[in-house]
C-alpha cells in the first residue's frame, strides 16, 4: 500500500462526477422538452419526472466520492481547529471510520434493494413500468464506489501516519481549510470582455 493510489482514485472520482453532472444537464433538457410539449402542444410524453428522479439518485451517488476527495462533506471544525495536531489526526481517522461505517451499511442495504428488485423483477408502479433494478444497480455502484474511496483514503492516511509522515496524513484527511474552499468557488473560467472593474480582481487574490 502506498499513498500514490489516492491521486488515481481522485481522477476516477472526477470522471464519475463529470458523468453525474452530465446526467443532470441531460435531465434539464428532458424536463424542459416535457414542459414545452405539455404547455405549448398539450402533449404529454409522460415519465420525464420519473426518469429524472432515477437520474438524480444515480448522479448524486456518482458524486459522493469526488466530494470526499475535494473535502466538501461538511465537518464542524470549531473544536477541531483548536486541537493539537495529534488529536486532529485522531479526529480525522474517526471521521473517516464513521463515514465509512455508514456507507458500508448503506451500500449493503442498497445492494439488497437492487437485488430484491432484480430477482423479483419488480417494476415501477407507473405507466413506464421501469424495471427498477436498472437505476438501482447504477445507484448501488455509486454507493460502493464511495465506500471504496473512503476505505482507500482511510488506509492511505493510516499508512502515512505509520510512516510518521504527518503532513501527508493531514493533507489527505484533514478538514478543509476555508482557503481551499474559496479557491474552488471562485475559479472563473470566463474569457469574455466583461468590463471588469479592475484587472487585479480576476482571481480573488489567490496566490
Amino acid at each position, binding site marked *: 500500500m502506498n499513498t500514490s493510489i489516492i491521486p488515481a482514485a481522485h481522477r476516477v472520482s472526477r470522471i464519475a*462526477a*463529470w458523468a*453525474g*453532472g452530465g446526467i*443532470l444537464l441531460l435531465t*434539464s*433538457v*428532458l*424536463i*424542459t422538452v416535457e414542459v414545452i410539449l405539455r*404547455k405549448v402542444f398539450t402533449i404529454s410524453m409522460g415519465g420525464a*419526472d420519473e426518469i*429524472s*428522479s432515477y437520474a*438524480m*439518485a444515480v*448522479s*448524486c*451517488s456518482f*458524486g*459522493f466520492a*469526488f*466530494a470526499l476527495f*475535494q473535502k*466538501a*462533506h*461538511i*465537518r*464542524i471544525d*470549531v*473544536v477541531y481547529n483548536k486541537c493539537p495536531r495529534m488529536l486532529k489526526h485522531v*479526529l480525522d481517522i*474517526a*471521521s473517516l471510520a*464513521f*463515514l465509512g*461505517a455508514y456507507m458500508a451499511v*448503506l451500500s449493503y*442495504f442498497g*445492494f439488497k*434493494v437492487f437485488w430484491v428488485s432484480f430477482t423479483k423483477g419488480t417494476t415501477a408502479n407507473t405507466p413506464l413500468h421501469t424495471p427498477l433494478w436498472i437505476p438501482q444497480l447504477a445507484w448501488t455502484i455509486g454507493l460502493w464506489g464511495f465506500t471504496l474511496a473512503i476505505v482507500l483514503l482511510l488506509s492511505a492516511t493510516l499508512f502515512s501516519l505509520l510512516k510518521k509522515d504527518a503532513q501527508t496524513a493531514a493533507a489527505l484527511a484533514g478538514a478543509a481549510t476555508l*482557503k481551499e*474552499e*474559496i479557491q474552488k*468557488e*471562485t*475559479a*472563473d*473560467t470566463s*474569457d*469574455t470582455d*466583461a468590463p*471588469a*472593474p*479592475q484587472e*487585479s*480582481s*480576476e*482571481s*480573488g487574490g489567490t496566490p
Partner: protein
Amino acid sequence: MIVTVTLGILLSLLLLSIPVAAALIILGFSIGQIFSDFPLYRAIGEISWSASTDFILLAIPLFVLLGEILLRAGIAKRTYTALARWLAWLPGGLMHANIATSAMFAATSGSSVATAATITTVALPEAERYRYRESLFAGSIAAGGTLGILIPPSINLIVYGFLTNTSIPQLFMAGIVPGIILTLLFMACIFAICLFKPEYGGVRQEATRAERLSSLADLVPVLLIFAVVIGSIYTGIATPTESAALGVLFSLGLAWQNRAVSLDFIKQVLEGTMRTTAMIMLILVAANFLNFILDSIGLAEQLTEFVNNLGLSPFKTLMVIILLYIVLGFFVETLSLMVITIPIVAPVMTGLGFDPVWFGVLIILLIEMALITPPVGLNLYVVQGVRQRGSISDIMKGSMPFVGMIALMVLLLILFPDMALVFSQYVD
C-alpha cells in the same frame, strides 16, 4: 429522556468534527436501538432510495447548476458594474451595489458562499481604490450574501419544505416580499450610517446618463432568469423542479451568448455542481433516515406534549425558539442546523397554530443571521478568506448593523405575518 440522549449523542459527534451526515446516521441507529424493539436500521436501503429519487429534491442540484453557470460565466461582474453605475451616487456608494448585486444573484441561485465569494472578488478592490471604510464595506458583502437563502429560488427553502412537507411554491412566494424588504432595510441602514458618518463611505462617483443606459443591458439576463424561474412557478406552468430545469437551459444560453462556454467551462461547472450537490444530498439522505427513526419512536408527539405541559403561551414558545436559533446559530453551521432542528421544532410550532409557510420564512431569517454572527458565521469567513489581510474582527464589526436589520425584519414578520402570506396564497 429521549431528547437529552438525542442531543447528547448528536452534539458530541458534531463537536468531534464527525462529518454531519455520518453523525446523523449514527444518532439514528443509536436511537433506533435504544428506543425501539424493531430493527429499524434494516429499512435504510429503501428509505435512502426513496429520498434519493424524490422529484422535489431534484430542484436542489438543478438550482446549484444554474447558479454555477451564471457565476462562472462572468455574469456577476457585469451585473455589479451595471448596478454600481446606478447606485454609486447615493450616500454609501458602492455598498448599495454590493447589496443589490447579492439580492439579484440571490434571485437566481441559492448558494450564499459562491455569491459572497464572487462579489467580494469583484467589489473589494474597489473599496480600497475609493477609500471606503473596509469593515462596513466587507460587512455589507457578507450580509448581502445571506439574501440568497431568502429570495427565491432558495435551496434552504427547498430543504425546509422537504423536511416539513410544506409546499415549496408557497415557500418561494412567501420569501419574495420579506426578501425585498430586507434588501431595502440593508440599503437604508448603509444610507443612514453614511449620512451621519460620511467617513464610512468612499469617494462618490457619478456615472453619465449614457453609461447608465448602456449598462441596463447587463441587468437584463439576470432579470430574465428570475422571470422564467419564478414566473413559471407563479403561473403554475411549472413545478419548482421544472422551473429549475428551464432556468438551467436558459442560463446556459446566456453563457453561450457571453462567449463563456468552452469545454473547460463545462468541466468546472459540472465539478462545482457535483461538489455542492453531493455534499447537500448526503446530508439530506441521512437526515431523512433520522426523521424516519424519530417518527417511528414518536419523538415529535412527545415533544409537543412536553411543550404543551410547560403551559407557555404560543407567543412565549416562539420567543424561546427564536432565542434558541440565535444561540445555536453562533456555533453550528447552517445546513446542519436546519436538518437537525427543523424536523423537531416545526411540528411543535405548527401544533401551536403557527402557519408552516410563515414559520419557514422566519426560520430562514434566523439562519441568515447565523451566517453573519461570530464565531461561526460562514459568510464572514468567506469574505475574510478572499480579502486575506487585516483581521476578521473588522468584518464582524462591519456586519453588526446588518444583524440588527435582520432582527428588525424578524420583528416585522411577527407583527405583520401577511408579508409572507400575501403571495403564497395564490399558489398550491
